[in-house]
Every structure is written in C-alpha cells, then in structure tokens.
C-alpha cells in the first residue's frame, strides 16, 4: 500500500536527554498504528515532530512525498495531519457545540468560505453540509450529543478526551495522531471508547496512529505496532509479533506491567 507519512532518521535532543534517536517509520495509507513504550520513551516527541510542534535536530518528514519537516503546526494541519493531545486542549469557556463550531469555522475559512462578504451557510469541505449540521453529526458520532451545551470546563475526563479527538475531525484529516486517547479512562471503558473513536475515524477514512499503554487495547485495534524505548523504535511489526518480541517484552510490556502494578499500589495505598 502507498506510504502517506514517511519519517526518516529523526533525531531530537533536549539537553542531555535524547528524545528521538534515529527514528524512522513509513506509515501506509489507511493503516492503524499503535505506538507503545514506557513514559519518557519518546512517543509524544515523535508526534510533536510530525505535527510541527517541535522540529527534529536532523532527519526529515514527508507527507505524500512532500517535505513537511519545516512547516508550522497550522500548516501541517492544513495538509491533513491532525492530532489530539495527551492532555486535552479545549476551549474551556465555550460549550461543546461551540468548540466544534470554532473548529469548523477555521476549516471554512481556510477553504476561503464563510468570510466577511460571503452569504448563506456554506458547506464544510469534505462534509457536504453546513457547519451546524456537521458539528451535530460529529458530536453524535463521538457520543457527545448529551453534552452539547455543557461548558468544556466542566466535562468529565473521558468526555474531555473524546471532545479533543472530535475537534480534530473537523478538518477531515487524512492522518490522525492520537496521544493516549484512553488515558485517565477506566480499564472497562477503554474498549468502548476506542471502539467509538475508531468507528468515527474510519467513517471519515483516516490513517491513525495512537499511543496506548494497555496492550490488550493495542492488540485489539492496531494493525501494526511501533515500540519505543529510550528515543528509539525497537520493534516495528504486527502486534502479535511485536508484543512477543523479547526486547519489547523486557523494556516495554514488562515496564507497562510494572507501571500498572505501581498504579494499583498507589490506588490501594
């Protein structure tokens, strides 16, 4: 299948910390890729480099053959690469619906629609409906209909996560990067949440990369796994292969089990 996103030999240092150490990955169109690795392994850094939030020291990133390494986040968004955040980035003073409308407004504006002189309600590019309808549709799809008029500020954690992801759908991304979409969500709810997100995303047809700590969730949803350790990708394979790789077991899965034990310990304490 065609490669849509091609990261080549990315390196990034923060002082003494090497957050990316020769990271390369070619992502195929319409694939679902799980990014795993313990905290500090470099997953978010990878996403940050792809979306232009930080620039790699060396290396390049190509989207459909175009070099996007030097582009600003908003330009990368405009080419069709969108992201959600480990900590949801919402408009706290606006309602859920208004959060959606602002996002769709930007999409309209970038398409040269909905300016000062335009009349009527133009259709959102990619969705053949005006913004209000698209907003309702996306919110429904993410199960956010009940929260429509609630302020983003007062939403429960899982709902904030969902809204953060729903906002990225406004631009109809061709690549979606989800940084820990299920973090802060209880183990029982994780599957339901991922189910919903993947259904919504696939309905619009996007390539997905998601960061996830729960290996069951990873093996259930990912077609391919990138395992990060110490700024490097130590395994890049289908989940059943990657998750049984000795190195991955030692540095990632083991670490995750350890991490979960710690969390349980903390919860019991």
């Amino acid at each position, binding site marked *: 299948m065609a490669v849509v996103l091609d990261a080549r030999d990315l390196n990034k240092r923060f002082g003494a910390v090497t957050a990316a150490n020769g990271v390369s990955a070619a992502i195929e169109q319409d694939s679902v890729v799980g990014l795993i690795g313990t905290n500090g392994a470099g997953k978010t850094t990878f996403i940050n480099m792809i979306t232009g939030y930080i620039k790699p020291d060396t290396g390049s990133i190509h989207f459909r053959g175009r070099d996007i390494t030097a582009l600003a986040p908003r330009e990368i968004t405009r080419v069709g690469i969108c992201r959600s955040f480990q900590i949801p*980035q919402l*408009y706290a003073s606006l309602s859920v619906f208004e959060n959606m409308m*602002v996002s769709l407004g930007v*999409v309209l504006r970038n398409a040269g629609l909905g300016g000062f002189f335009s009349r009527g309600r133009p259709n959102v590019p990619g969705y053949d409906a005006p913004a209000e309808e698209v907003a309702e549709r996306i919110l429904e799809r993410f199960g956010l209909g009940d929260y429509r008029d609630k302020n983003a500020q007062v939403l429960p954690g899982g709902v904030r996560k969902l809204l953060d992801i729903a906002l990225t759908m*406004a631009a109809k991304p061709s690549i979606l990067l989800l940084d820990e979409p299920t973090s802060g969500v209880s183990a029982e709810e994780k599957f339901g949440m991922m189910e919903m997100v993947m259904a919504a995303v696939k309905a619009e047809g996007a390539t997905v990369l998601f960061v996830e700590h729960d290996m069951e969730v990873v093996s259930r949803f990912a077609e391919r796994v990138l395992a990060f350790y110490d700024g490097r990708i130590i395994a890049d394979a289908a989940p059943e292969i990657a998750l049984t790789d000795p190195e991955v077991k030692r540095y990632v899965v083991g670490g995750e089990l350890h991490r979960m034990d710690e969390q349980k310990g903390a919860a019991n304490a």
Partner: protein
Amino acid sequence: MSNITPRDRTLPMLGAVLLAVIVLGPLLPKWALFLLTIAIAKGMVSLGLMLQLRAGLVSFGQALYYCIGGYTAGSLGRFFDISDMLLQMICGASAAAFVALILGFLLARYRGIFYGLLSMALSMILYGLLAKSESLGSTDGINILPSTIFGIRPVQEWVRYVVLVTGCSVAALAAALVQRYLKTPLGQLSPAIKDNEIRVEYMGASARKAIHVKYVIAAALSGIGGALAATAVGHIDPDMAYWTTSGEFIFITILAGTRSVAAPFLGAILFETIRTVAFDISPNTWQMTLGISLLLVIVFLPEGLWSLFSRRKAA
C-alpha cells in the same frame, strides 16, 4: 457562560437607536448633544478595545489611535483646508489602520501584560512626539475647522445636532460591520484564542494573524472616534494620546462588557454622564464617584452593564 454567538437583534436595535437620536435630538439641550457625541466617539474606541478583550487582550494604549484620528482631522483642516466630518472620520480611520498594520507585526507577538504595556509605550511615544512638534501646536494642540458635511456648514444653532447625527450614523454602521465580523469564523476565533492558542494553531489557524486583524480593526474604530471627538470639541492636543485617556477607554469597556457591539456605547454614555454629574456635584471627588461606580459594576455585574439587557442561560 459563552460569548461566541453575538445576539441577532442587534441590527434592528442599532437602527432604532439611530432613529431615536434623529427624532429626539432637536429636543435635547446642547450640552446633552455634546455629551452624547463625545460618548459615541469614546464608544468607538471602546468597541475596538472590546474586540481585543474578547481575545483576552487589554491594550493600555488605545489612545494612540484615538489621537491619530484626532490629529488626522486636525491636519486635514490645517494643511488642506478640509473640514468635512465624514472625510475626517474616513481619513482618521485610514491613518490609524495604517499605523496599526505596521505596529501590529510587533504587537501581535505579545500577550498579557506585555501587550498592554507595549501598546501604552507606543501611545506615550506619540504623546512625546506631538508635545514637541511646533507645527502641530506642541502641548497646546491646534484648533479644528468648524465642522461641515457634504460641503455644507450647518448654522450655529444646529451644529451640535448635525455632528451628533453624523457621528451616530457612522457609529451605527461601524457597529453593524463589527457585528458581522464577529459572526465570521475569524471573529468567532476570539474566545478560542483567549482560551487556548495551542488548539487554535492545531486547528489550522494563526492566532497571531487573527490578533493582528483585530488590532487593525480596533485602530480604525478608534481613529473614527478620535476624528469625531476632534470635530465635536473643535480642538485637539497631545493629551488625546496620554495614558490616562487610554485608562478611560478601558474603564468604559469594563463597565460595558463584551456581550454586544452596542454595549461600549452604552458604557460610554454612562461614563460621561456619571462624570458630568459627579463633577457638578463635587468637583474635587468626581474620580472617587467614578471609581465607586466601576467597583459596583464589577462586583454586581461582572460581565458588564450589558448583562442587564441580555438574559442568557447560565451554563
């Protein structure tokens, strides 16, 4: 509580108020006509501040553009013998917008207190320059030619009325345009910028560019206000750019709230009225009266006077 969707009854209301001014104006005493004109002029500046405030930015130097508007009107008379009010306002707006377009490249990089203080510094620079420039009257300022409109000079009896109606018409038009702008995606980005610039960037919009546009619009509005004040007072001086003048505009904006494009005008009328009355009653403590009234508004109407008029769902 959200402030993203401006109210829709604004346009008919603006029209009704304008009509009321035209019809009832002749019944008002001259001092009231003057007070209203000055309030409209200041309301224009406050409208510009409101645009910025919606995006979370407070300019402590909006008087810069008020002053540019005033001095543009003054210079038109002094150097080109032009006294047409509409031309004064159009040129005042253009000059202010041009300066803001340039300075905006600098200002739009800053947020919070830096934005505020930098804008104040720029305003004080203009104050300093004007105070030193002989050809523009130094600290004494210069007089403005008696107002005309479309080549007609109203008889003395009617000047105040004509200036007020002209000012109100321009203000109503400006408020309607701002209202329209607030409904565009760029206008609706304001609260988003205030809340979360990271998300704004990751949606594919430039917060800096959006702020730059708001800054220029605000300057144009302030330039109109400055030109109107100049033609109403008949005199301009560098105090128009002084930081206390900017303070007044912030005062009015906070008093008014950001909920409607009409709010700044209401705030300005109240401000001018309180000041006039307080000054009449007790010339030495009028600032205290003003201070107390602002305090009351902040405590009891934290979203400004306009919340008295708009009953919105509490979120």
